[in-house]
């Protein structure tokens, strides 16, 4: 597996249109396709559930415990990571609010975050593999992963090579993911499909299966980088969690899910939780199987928790900013 990287680059030649169609239709025969209208109708229903009082408070707190508090900006500094970690440990003055699941940062900053979070259960997640495009030579990407892990990253968020996927080079895509799995060692892996660049729900389902077939139980698949034009929606997340469900029913292997990008409000987060509950069940309603990749979401969750407790709508500036929105 170690030198599969070199093989991939050699075998990469754009297949002819017919061959491309064949490779996709073969895959779709195997895993099935997505009913676009059905999916969109289904997720529209998730937004109509009435969640009030106690269950709302539970949902909000659960969502806080699932947040991967994220900052992925060129201007990030160790100081900013320190305040992000502080926010992650104790999001609110209210002791009732749990810490978040993880912080998600660039590899260079992992060593600082690891120090700040050493005495907590909060994970350090690092994007790696030439995030967000994934367009670097494989050995460099693998080295980036190994460096992040040795600096103290508990989780690695990798991006798949969308170009390879779209040109039907499924084996190459899987080989790359396998290589990263190996480079991760004990670290958990999240595979970012970047759904907005995959164009169709069928492709999202296909990419989900390709990733799930080679990652380990407990690893995650993730919607987006947050850097492309589109991001997580209820619909593309639904396609992915249905893929997780089908994969689980077929193999018994449980894969986690992380929607990321564009989830900014507590209300949206509750809609996503409804989708999980009604598709995957309670076993996925915890931070070891489900995460939100977000930054501004956390403050809106805190705001709504405070609203539930006091009955008064809260001003956004009552809550500290951990990082700018993504």
């Amino acid at each position, binding site marked *: 597996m170690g030198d599969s990287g070199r093989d991939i680059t050699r075998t990469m030649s754009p297949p002819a249109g017919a061959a491309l169609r064949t490779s996709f239709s073969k895959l779709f025969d195997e895993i099935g396709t997505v009913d676009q209208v059905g999916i969109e109708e289904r997720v529209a229903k998730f937004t109509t559930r009435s969640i009030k009082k106690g269950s709302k408070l539970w949902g909000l707190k659960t969502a806080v415990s699932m947040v991967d508090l994220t900052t992925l900006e060129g201007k990030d500094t160790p100081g900013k990571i320190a305040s992000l970690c502080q926010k992650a440990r104790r999001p609110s003055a209210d002791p009732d609010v749990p810490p978040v699941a993880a912080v998600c940062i660039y590899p260079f900053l992992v060593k600082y975050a690891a120090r700040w979070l050493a005495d907590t259960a909060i994970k350090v997640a690092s994007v790696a593999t030439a995030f967000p495009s994934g367009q670097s030579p494989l050995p460099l990407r693998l080295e980036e992963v190994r460096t992040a892990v040795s600096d103290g990253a508990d989780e690695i968020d990798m991006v798949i090579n969308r170009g390879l996927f779209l040109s039907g080079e499924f084996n190459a895509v899987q080989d790359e993911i396998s290589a990263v799995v190996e480079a991760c060692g004990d670290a958990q892996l999240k595979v970012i499909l970047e759904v907005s660049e995959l164009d169709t729900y069928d492709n999202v389902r296909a990419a989900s299966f390709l990733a799930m077939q080679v990652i380990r139980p407990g690893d995650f698949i993730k919607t987006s980088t947050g850097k492309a034009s589109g991001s997580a929606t209820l619909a593309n997340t639904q396609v992915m969690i249905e893929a997780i469900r089908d994969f689980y029913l077929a193999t018994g292997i449980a894969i986690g899910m992380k929607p990321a990008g564009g989830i900014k409000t507590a209300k949206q987060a509750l809609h996503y939780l409804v989708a999980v509950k009604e598709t995957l069940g309670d076993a996925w309603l915890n931070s070891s199987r489900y995460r939100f990749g977000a930054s501004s979401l956390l403050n809106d969750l805190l705001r709504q928790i405070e609203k539930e407790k006091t*009955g*008064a*709508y*809260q*001003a*956004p500036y*009552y809550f500290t900013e951990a990082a700018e929105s993504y």
Partner: protein
Amino acid sequence: MARIPVTKTPKVYVGGQFIRSESGRVFPIQKKLSPKGQPSLLANIPQCTRKDLRNAVEAAAKAGPDWARRTPYNRGQILYRLGEMLESRSAEMTDALVISGASTKAAAAKEVVASVDRLIYYAGWSDKYEQVLGNTNPVAGPFFNFTVAEPMGIIGIIADDAFPLLGLLSQIAPVIVSGNVCVALASEEFPYPAIVLGELLAVSDLPGGVVNLLTGFRKELVPTFATHTHIRGVNAVVSQEEKKQLQLGAAESIKRVRARKRDDEIDWTGEKAQSVYEIRDFIEFKTTWHPIGA
């Protein structure tokens, strides 16, 4: 050929858009009765909820920074233009006041004229109130010491039932001229003129979200005006009961309350109803030091 009349669905003007209440609820208002006429429906008015108020505050919060950053001169121009537009629509506005039974034809015409004048009055103040309310303070040292007037942010407005147009505008204009944004609850009894006012605001130069107009029941909305912590002040015409409610909520959320008594039968047409001190009511004063010669 007989034509089926096209009636208007009144919607409230929030965040630069015309919306229904999120609840979907409406309440009917009647046309003014002629001496021997039967009561007949004028319109179904949106019955806004506290969630609508919350959404309106979010819309106001979005519009706030840009509005506050504009030059006082520009804000004055926009208010003046609003006055111009109301002048040219005075027939429509008079009709809105009369048809909903808020006033007689003569009184309504007078109210619209006074409303135009009020807008012009505050437009004039836009680049002058700071000279009157701010100051350069004498200090014992080589420093300039300035007191400058700054807007507070989002202001809630609860309008009077008497003079449903003039009263509302007399509360809105001094609030927004200094760079505040507002969420206003129109008269419960005569909400129709506020609906028409929204249509005027939508085509004016006022950016969407600076003035947000809600219609509905005071009973349902006053408590939220009182407790919402993002609303920095309330400019209200209220009963004794509502005043207490506002003050209790304001103490909790630390906001300024300017309450006029509803029972006082305020004469909104009078000279006393307009003043630079109406602007001062929703200003924060900031004092800064600056070394001389540096």
